[in-house]
């Protein structure tokens, strides 16, 4: 068991919450952190972050977009640029956005910068859909 803190510039999601397990989208792929993990500093990509609170079976989820994660003996510190919680995700709108942007990229000539931007937004939208659908499935 260790402590988890998640903050973004706009809000504090969790502060020193006791958790048993954390999964983050690390620089080199998904990273699972259990108690007693070696000290580590990594940057985070865009993807789904999961954590399980102490004594609970339920996996909490959120989409985070760029961030940084520090694992120390005391706990895990996550700084994320943007965090989307499942209840804040508009599934229909995200799907529409995804379809629209895919069409835009396929149909039009775009610059490299636009392509990079598209990749980021696309990954984020996919992660949002994944989280939203997982949450719906968990409720059923």
């Amino acid at each position, binding site marked *: 068991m260790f402590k988890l803190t998640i*903050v*973004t*510039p706009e809000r504090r999601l969790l502060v020193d919450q006791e958790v048993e397990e954390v999964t983050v989208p690390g620089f080199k792929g998904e990273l699972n952190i259990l108690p007693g993990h070696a000290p580590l*500093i990594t940057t985070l990509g865009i993807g789904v972050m999961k954590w399980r609170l102490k004594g609970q079976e339920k996996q909490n989820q959120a989409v985070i977009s760029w961030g940084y994660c520090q694992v120390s003996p005391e706990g895990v510190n996550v700084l994320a640029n943007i965090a989307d919680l499942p209840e804040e995700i508009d599934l229909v709108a995200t799907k529409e956005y995804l379809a629209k942007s895919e069409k835009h990229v396929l149909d039009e000539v775009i610059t490299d910068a636009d392509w990079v931007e598209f990749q980021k937004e696309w990954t984020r939208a996919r992660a949002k859909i994944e989280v939203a659908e997982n949450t719906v499935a968990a409720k059923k």
Partner: protein
Amino acid sequence: MASLKDIRAQIESTKNTQQITKAMKLVSAAKLRKAQNNIVNMRPYALTLRKVIADIAVTNKVTHPLMEKKEQVKNVLLVVITSDRGLCGAFNSNINKFTEAYYNENKSKLEKIDFLFIGRRGHDYFARRGIKPVDYITKLDKDISYELASKVANRVMNDYLEGAYDEVRIVHNEFQSAISQVVVAETILPIDLGKTTFNTEAETTSNFAVDMIFEPAPEQIIKELLEKHFDLQVYRCMSESVAGEHGARMSAMENATNNAKEMINKLTLTYNKLRQEKITTELIEIVSGAEALKG
């Protein structure tokens, strides 16, 4: 001398104005609370980020172009943050005056001073003086978001790294309290590590494990963290400015409401005096008419 009807109309219109200013004050108060929350919410993020940069920079002795000071400063970019709307006292004119003074003072010493305006008021003021900005951003009336701030920050940083500028300064109002905002000019690029109260090496290494695993390498992490730190600085300045704007508007509207109240009192007094006078005159006329009839 104004007639009774005129004064009555004036009182009515002053009352209407007072209602508007009162409503605006309440709206600003609500927005101010939100903006203040924003600033408070940002603090944990800012503190952690700053601490980590310090830790990594000190233990691994890494540097980055964003941190290196240029020997000679020739080209400066001024980022000027104002509000989009007026009716907030001296909030915008303070900024504009300060910037203009800085410009006049330094334009002969430097090769180039460019402007980037955030907020319509600053842009309009300098547009009238024939200064063209490299870019300007308006529509701040909705809430400013971190995403918007990082877009601005990215643009500025790219220009800086390409060597277009040797220094980037930001002029904005710093929020001190609802009634006081102070104009601040800060150098945001190059990032000055001295100013951000960095720990000494001894302090740092004591709580910073030496066998820390870095993914990716420390240099890469520092680069990304510095970029985020810069984004955050821009976001912070914008948030401070927004909070200041609402604070300034709140107190300006409070004053306006009080002035309206005073004016209504004065007008009512004049109105009553006039009314009394009229009644007295009428009474005298009646009485003297009656006297005359008695003969």
